[in-house]
């Protein structure tokens, strides 16, 4: 189309007027984005906005339509009844614990993968981590429940060996929920860390060693601080995944560990209080966002203070 405007210079190279290059580079295909935008506005933005608006309606059991009469009754209820506001702290506490455990377990494996130079071994480790990330959560939870249940593999083996008299409480409590969430979120932590550990040039660590630093010293004063971006990204992803999970607390906690997503489901599906369920959804979203922002600010400050 623009071909006729192309001129060939004396040295045979193609010379193209700047204006044509700008047209070619510019968003000539802008309409390609329209289907996705329309789809996301109708089926994501509008529904989410109206759900959040519904949270500001007075609770009316079984009524789902938006009304113009706004109220903050739902939020007052959440922040004055211990069963609800404790769930906020429980959700944040569990998610933070999952981040710490996930970092302690995930960092060494990410380091090993980043430092493994054998391509076959490296690919095998990557496929193992990725497969376990992409495998259906409920399937993995099935495996964990068979392992940790009162009649599960661990308890029945220990009972048979006579090491314990009664089954250990490994599931249907906070311990079980944390184990489940760590299992589910570990691959995300590992994948975030691999990238930033790989990008640290090995000569930096070697330089520290040659200047007399011990291996541990070289690691903690060179590698670990330099992998901070990966640690930050990994913990942020793991935190939001852990905070918003419904299926893990439901199965591993047996409805005894009341976190916010469990409350949302119960309010909506079991008691039909849509407005109140919507209000908990708003609080879940905002408290997650707030916790992440505070964490991010603190991390930025720590990083700024060091340099």
């Amino acid at each position, binding site marked *: 189309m623009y071909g006729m405007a*192309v001129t060939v210079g004396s040295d045979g190279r193609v010379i193209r007027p700047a204006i044509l290059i700008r047209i070619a580079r510019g968003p000539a295909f802008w309409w390609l984005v329209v289907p996705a935008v329309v789809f996301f506005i109708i089926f994501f933005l509008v529904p989410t906005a109206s759900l959040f608006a519904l949270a500001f309606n007075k609770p009316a059991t079984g009524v789902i339509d938006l009304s113009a009469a706004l109220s903050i009754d739902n939020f007052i209820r959440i922040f004055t009844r211990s069963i609800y506001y404790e769930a906020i702290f429980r959700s944040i506490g569990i998610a933070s614990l999952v981040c710490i455990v996930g970092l302690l377990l995930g960092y060494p*494996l990410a380091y*090993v993968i980043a430092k493994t130079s054998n391509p076959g071994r490296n690919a095998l480790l990557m496929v193992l981590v990725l497969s376990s990330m992409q*495998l259906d959560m409920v399937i993995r939870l099935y495996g964990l429940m068979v392992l940790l249940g009162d009649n599960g593999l661990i308890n029945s083996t220990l009972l048979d060996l006579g090491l314990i008299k009664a089954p250990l409480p490994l599931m249907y409590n906070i311990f079980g929920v944390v184990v489940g969430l760590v299992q589910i979120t*570990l691959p995300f932590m590992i994948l975030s860390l691999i990238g930033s550990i790989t990008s640290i040039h090995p000569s930096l660590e070697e330089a520290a060693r040659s200047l007399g630093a011990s291996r541990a010293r070289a690691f903690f004063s060179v590698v670990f601080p330099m992998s901070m971006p990966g640690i930050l990204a990994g913990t942020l992803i793991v935190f939001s995944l852990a905070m918003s999970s419904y299926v893990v607390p439901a199965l591993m906690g047996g409805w005894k560990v009341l976190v916010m997503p469990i409350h949302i489901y119960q309010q909506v599906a079991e008691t039909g209080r849509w407005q109140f369920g919507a209000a908990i959804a708003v609080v879940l979203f905002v408290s997650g966002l707030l916790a992440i922002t505070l964490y991010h600010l603190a991390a930025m400050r720590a990083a700024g203070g060091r340099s």
Partner: protein
Amino acid sequence: MRGESAIPFAFRVISWLTLAILLIPVVIVILAGLNSGDYLTFPPQGLSLRWVVAFLTSETFLPAFGTSLLIALITTLISTIIGTMAALVLSRARGRIVNALRVLFILPIVLPGIVVGLALYVFYISTDVGLARTMAGLIIGHVIVTCPFVIATVTAVLVGFDRSLEEAARSLGASPFTAFRLVTLKVISSSISAGAIFAFIISFGQFEVTLFLSGPNLQTLPITMYTALRYSFEPTAAAAGIFAIFLVVAATVTTSRITDLKRIFGR
């Protein structure tokens, strides 16, 4: 080799522990599905295809597997097409609107899945469009949460794409469409496949978004397994899990062959 020997001993030990935490649940599901007894004991009582046969003749698990597969395939098709189209624009255009669109396409993965599902369910019921508890309604939910992954995967490659290649084709007389088809599409085709496989896997294993959108006549495999797990550890569910595990591992191996995974995840 020298680099590998520099890995501290403690790191090696914890790495094995971490790998065990990642893999043991999967191994247990496979053993439970191939076990000959009514429940899994350690050591297993013996291998049999009893539960695999039970799955293949099951009136709950087999149809659920089929439903999940069908939903994942349709979701993948829609997400890949509209996601790739969007990525082509997002990677090239600049400006405030484009930045706003980037946020729009990331939001569905930032928002908890249960909230996305609930919002759509409330929307379907209050607007009375007849999508509540239908397959079309569920697929829409899955497209919303899988499309961001297609967009991210394709954009990652397009950002590093040298556009002078396409311009060279154009200057040699190719029409914009031909230049796009022969040059750009060829370069990004592997990342489109990778994005499509991610979309498929995420849709196939999706639980949280599905929770509110499924119904008594619309049961996916994760929902059916979840319902079964509430009451007992049915080995038929584990047998169904074996088939899902093979599907996912095959898909992951395919992705790692066609793309450089570290390039996609290592940012």
